[in-house]
C-alpha cells in the first residue's frame, strides 16, 4: 500500500510554549481509517494543521501522496485533503446548503453546468439531498456537519480529516455523522483515507488503527481491540477507558481479548452463580 501521509523528523513548537513535536515520525496509509486520540493540548489538532500547511514547522518533512509539502505544493496538497472542524457554525459561507457545496466547486472553477449534478451527488452521499434549498442556520448541528462533509466530498478528496467534528453535537447528531462516515468508507474503501481526531473512545473503536498522542509523542499505535486492553494506561494518559473495560477492571478481570458491552453482558450471564 502507498502512504497517504508521511511525516519525518518533524519539529514544531508554539511560540512561547516550547517544543511540542521533536523528531516526530508517523505515516498514514492510503485507504486507512485512523483515529488520533490524546488529551486537550496533546498536539493532535496541531498535527493536522501542520499537514495542511496551516502552521509552519521548524524542521522535518511532510509528504502527502509522495508530494513534499512546500509553498509550491500547498495548493495541490490541500486539493487532496479535506478537513471538517469542530464548530459546525464556523464553516458556512453559502446562503443555502446547495450554495455552500457550490462554493468549493466554484473555487476549483468547475463549469457551472456541471455543478448541479455534483452538488446533488455530494448531498446524497451524506443523506442531505432533501435540504439543498435550506438556509444553513436552520439545520441541526449534526446536519451542518454532514453538509460540511458534502462540501468536501464534492471536491473528491483522497483524505478527509475530522478534527473533533462531533464534539459539539448531541447524541443523535453524533450518531448520524458516524453512520455517514461508515457509509462513505464502505462506498469508497481504499479510495478514501479517513483521519478522525477525537477523545471519544466509542468513536475511535470504529477505526482500523488508533494513534495515541501525548505531549507531542506517539505513545501507542495499534488496533482499537488491543489498545483498549490497556485500560489503566489510557487513564494515566488522561483518556477514558471504554465502559466495558472499566467495568471488567472493577470486577478484577483482566480480559485477554477486548469485549464490547454486548459481549461482556453475554459473558457475565454465563458466570451467574
Amino acid at each position: 500500500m502507498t502512504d497517504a501521509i508521511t511525516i519525518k523528523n518533524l519539529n514544531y513548537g508554539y511560540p512561547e510554549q516550547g517544543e511540542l513535536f521533536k523528531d516526530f515520525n508517523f505515516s498514514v496509509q492510503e485507504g486507512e481509517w485512523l483515529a488520533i486520540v490524546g488529551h486537550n493540548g496533546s498536539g493532535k489538532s496541531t498535527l493536522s494543521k501542520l499537514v495542511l500547511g496551516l502552521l509552519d514547522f521548524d524542521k522535518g518533512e511532510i509528504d502527502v501522496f509522495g508530494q513534499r509539502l512546500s509553498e509550491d505544493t500547498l495548493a495541490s496538497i490541500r486539493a487532496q485533503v479535506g478537513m471538517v472542524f469542530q464548530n459546525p457554525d464556523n464553516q458556512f459561507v453559502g446562503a443555502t446548503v446547495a450554495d455552500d457545496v457550490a462554493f468549493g466547486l466554484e473555487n476549483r472553477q468547475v463549469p457551472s453546468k456541471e455543478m448541479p449534478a455534483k452538488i446533488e451527488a455530494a448531498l446524497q452521499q451524506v443523506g442531505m439531498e432533501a435540504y439543498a434549498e435550506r438556509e444553513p442556520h436552520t439545520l441541526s448541528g449534526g446536519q451542518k456537519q454532514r453538509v460540511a462533509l458534502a462540501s468536501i466530498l464534492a471536491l473528491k478528496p483522497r483524505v478527509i480529516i475530522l478534527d473533533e467534528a462531533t464534539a459539539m453535537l448531541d447524541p443523535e447528531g453524533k450518531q448520524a455523522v458516524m453512520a455517514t462516515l461508515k457509509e462513505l468508507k464502505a462506498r469508497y474503501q481504499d479510495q478514501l483515507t479517513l483521519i478522525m481526531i477525537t477523545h471519544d473512545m466509542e468513536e475511535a473503536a470504529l477505526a482500523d488503527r488508533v494513534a495515541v498522542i501525548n505531549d507531542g509523542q506517539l505513545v501507542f499505535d495499534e488496533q482499537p481491540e488491543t489498545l483498549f486492553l490497556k485500560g489503566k494506561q489510557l487513564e494515566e494518559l488522561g483518556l477514558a477507558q471504554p465502559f466495558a473495560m472499566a467495568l471488567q477492571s472493577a470486577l478484577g478481570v483482566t480480559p485477554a481479548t477486548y469485549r464490547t458491552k454486548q459481549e461482556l453482558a453475554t459473558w457475565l450471564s454465563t458466570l451467574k452463580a
Partner: protein
Amino acid sequence: MVINIEGLDFAYGAGKQTVPVLKNINLNFPEGEITAIIGQTGSGKSTLVQQLNVLLKPTAGEVHIGDHVVTSKTKEKALTPIRAEVGMVFQFPESQLFAPTVLEDVMYGPKNFGATEEEAKQAAEEALAKVGFDASLFEQSPFNLSGGQMRRVALAGVLAMNPQTMVFDEPAAGLDPQGQAELLDLLKTLRDEGKTIVLISHQMEQVLALADQVVVMKDGQVAAHEPVEELFARPQAWFADQHLDLPETIAFQKQMEKQGFTFEHLAKTVDNLAEQLAGQLDPAALADQSTVQKQTGGSQHE
C-alpha cells in the same frame, strides 16, 4: 438565591405570528443544589434557561429570581441588576474571549459592573485560581492557549462577577476526561458554597454524577421533574420516548436485569455496578480469567 417559575408560557413573535415554545412551566431551583435540564435538541431547554437570566421575558406567568419578579410587563431597565446575579456560561464560552491578556479578559466583567481596577484584579485572580489556571500564564494572550485552558479563562470570567446563580450550557463539551472531571468538581464546589446551579447537558454520565434534581423537557413542556435517582429508575422505554440516552452504568444495569440479575441500588458508578454484580457471579469462574475466550464473534484484525 432561589428561582421559581410559575405558570410560564413563552412564544416568539407577536400578534397572530406567534410561535409557542414553552407551555405551562412550573419549576423550582433551590439554593445549594444542582438542577440539570435535559431533553432532545429543540425541546425548549435553551429557551427555558434564557428566562433565568432574563435574556427573554415570559409571555405569561412569572419568574421569581431571588427578590425580583419578572413578568411580560417588566421594564428592560429593571432586568439589568438581575443579569448580574445570574451568570451564564454558554456553550463553547471560549469563543467569546477577546482581551489581549488572560487577566484583562477575566477583569472585564467586574469592571463593567462598576468594580475598580484593583477590585477587578483581585476578583479575576481569585476566579482564575478557582478554575485551576496557572498564574504564570496570566499575561499570555488567551488565543495562544489550548482549548481546555481557554475554557477555564472563559469560566473564570463568569466566576469573577460572583453571581449567586450560575447556568452552564454543556460546560464540558469538547474537553478531555481530565478536563471534564475538573469541571465537574468545580460545579460541586460552587454548589457546596450554596450557589444555585443549573446545568444543561446531553451527557447523562454528568447528569447522574452531579445533579440533585433533573428537569426533562419535551416539546416545550416539563415531561419530568424529580430527584436524579427517581428519574433514572424509570424504564428504558421511557427514555427512548424522550430520545434520551441512559448513563452507561444504568443502561448496563437494566440490561443485566433482563438477564435475571437483581440490583438493590441504582448503579451511580462503575465501581458500584461491579460491586452489585460481583455478589451474583460465580467467584471461581470469575477468578479463572486467562483461559476465558471471547464469547461471541466480532471484527478481529490480525
